[in-house]
């Protein structure tokens, strides 16, 4: 076996190194030194991010293997006899996920320093990084076995995170709902994979398309497989677990679940639909067409009547997943680029919103929309951050959310889905109503007993500033989208 291949697994290896260091620190660190756990964790993830961020080509050039670098630049480079795929776009998505994880870590401090969680705060960072590792493997997989292991590594520890506040009934209940749906979904996916194996005789992504004939059994296998991933992405009609889990989980975990986990699953779904189920393109486009319409519409209608902020954002994230699927259904280069860009923008917007929800919940214990009445008079800066995030989610022009929506719509129109885009546009108007409802309650509604003004700690502020900068700059810096588009050619 050729061990020199391992040098190309730099993302996974550096993340494993971070996990091992943090694990040893958590076990052997003195009680006093553990107070610095969060800064150390953030620092290590930051170092890991630097390693991941340098584009694949530059990194490979450092290690002096130019032929491989050229091949990677041209497209996918299989490693470990095809089990693991090295491709630039995958590295970009991995760094996007790592940035999101870093922001979640910055915002988690308030909650973790609480009385009941302080004793096991180290576990939060460790388990989160484990799930991140699972998503890395999912993204890089070139075989259904590695894909399945990545999927499970991303979802089993996630259940323990959801049930992290184990003395709170709601957290435990959300954990049970999450783990049971997650196993059920992966069981459905597995049944699909087993039928694919039975009809094609291989599990390698590169070999399957040639053996796909479009027989009824293969279409059924695809439907099972898609259903499993749709549960993860919470597409309608597989979305019922989402609001409950989002409401019950600790807010930092909800933020992680709604952004990082969903972004990784969306990207992987597009890669697998394009690369593996390419021959079945007519079937999956027909399925996706109706799923997208149902997802966007149903989620928007339910979001209208929510009072709890976390539940509200759960439905909002379901409808956002529908918009992300618009990039998937096009199946083109533009679709891929717009999907990655959408995930990036959505990550900053949603993390900003959840950062505000998290700090307000921690300081005042309030989490319904009515509680936000008059927030601007007491906490002007938090209200402005929340407003920027909501405008970006709704897609109002100067903010990045407008451009990301524009690109996914453009990708779908390019493939001739006029009706689909029309329905999505109508839904954008509906979504504008409920996003603005929150803005109205913060800025216009009067309230005698508004949430008292407070000063948040440095880490949370750093996280919120990073998110706001992302929302404001990403739309204006066209170089970001250009770069993503450049690397998604021939994904």
């Amino acid at each position, binding site marked *: 076996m050729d061990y020199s291949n391992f040098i190309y697994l730099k993302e996974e290896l550096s993340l494993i190194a971070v996990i091992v260091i943090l694990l040893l620190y958590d076990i052997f660190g003195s009680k006093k030194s553990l107070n610095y756990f969060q800064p150390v964790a953030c620092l290590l993830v930051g170092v890991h991010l630097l390693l991941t961020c340098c584009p694949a080509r530059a990194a490979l050039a450092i290690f002096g293997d130019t032929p491989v670098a050229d091949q990677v630049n041209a497209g996918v480079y299989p490693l470990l006899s095809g089990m693991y795929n090295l491709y630039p776009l995958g590295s970009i998505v991995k760094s996007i996920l790592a940035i999101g994880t870093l922001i979640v870590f910055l915002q988690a401090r308030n909650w973790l320093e609480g009385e009941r969680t302080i004793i096991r705060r180290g576990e939060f960072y460790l388990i989160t990084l484990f799930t991140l590792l699972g998503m890395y493997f999912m993204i890089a997989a070139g075989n259904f076995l590695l894909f399945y292991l990545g999927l499970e590594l991303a979802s089993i520890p996630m*259940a323990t995170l959801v049930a992290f506040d184990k003395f709170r*009934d709601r957290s435990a209940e959300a954990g049970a709902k999450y783990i049971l749906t997650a196993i059920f979904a992966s*069981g459905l996916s597995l049944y699909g994979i*087993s039928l694919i194996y039975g009809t094609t*005789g291989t599990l390698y992504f590169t070999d399957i398309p040639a053996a796909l004939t479009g027989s009824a059994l293969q279409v059924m296998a695809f439907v099972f497989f898609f259903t499993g991933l749709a549960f993860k992405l919470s597409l309608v009609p597989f979305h019922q677990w989402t609001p409950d889990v989002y409401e*019950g989980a600790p807010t930092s975990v909800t933020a992680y679940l709604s952004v990082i986990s969903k972004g990784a699953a969306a990207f992987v779904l597009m890669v697998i639909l394009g690369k593996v189920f390419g021959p079945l393109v007519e079937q999956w486009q027909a399925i996706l067409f109706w799923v997208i319409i149902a997802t966007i519409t149903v989620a928007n209608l339910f979001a209208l009547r929510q009072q709890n902020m976390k539940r509200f954002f759960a439905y909002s994230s379901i409808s956002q997943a529908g918009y992300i699927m618009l990039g998937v259904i096009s199946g083109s280069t533009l679709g891929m680029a717009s999907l990655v860009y959408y995930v990036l923008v959505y990550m900053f917007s949603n993390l900003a919103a959840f950062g505000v929800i998290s700090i307000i919940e921690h300081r005042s214990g309030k989490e319904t929309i009515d509680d936000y009445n008059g927030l601007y008079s007491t906490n002007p800066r938090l209200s402005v951050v929340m407003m920027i995030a909501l405008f970006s989610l709704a897609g109002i022009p100067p903010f990045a959310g407008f451009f990301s929506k524009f690109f996914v719509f453009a990708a779908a129109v390019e493939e001739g889905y006029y009706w689909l885009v029309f329905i999505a546009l109508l839904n954008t108007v509906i979504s504008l109503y409920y996003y603005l409802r929150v803005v109205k309650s913060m800025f216009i509604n009067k309230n005698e007993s508004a949430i008292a003004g407070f000063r948040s700690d440095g880490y949370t502020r750093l996280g919120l500033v990073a998110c706001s900068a992302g929302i404001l700059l990403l739309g204006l810096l066209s170089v970001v989208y250009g770069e993503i588009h450049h690397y998604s050619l021939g994904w």
Partner: protein
Amino acid sequence: MEGLHLEYYLVVSAIMFFAGVYGFITRRNLLAVLISIELILNSVDINFALFNRFLFPGQLEGFFFTLFAIGVSACEAAVAIAIIINIYRNIRNIQVKNLQQLKD
């Protein structure tokens, strides 16, 4: 091997799979729901092993997938049971109908 065709095993695994799906939807006890899911996972294991044995005897991919799937489903069961025990400690009950703090 005469008389035992691929189809017989496939029928068994399909029945197991759909019994699992039915149980997942109708059972009223969290542990029974978990058992139903295990039925689904086991039907998948059967599928992989017998496809490999009957259709592609020269390779080992299916058997390996079965081994991994068994290991992973054990982890899943461990985490799920831990969470169910935690619920029992909180509300002294593991009936699905008592999980109603989170709803629309």
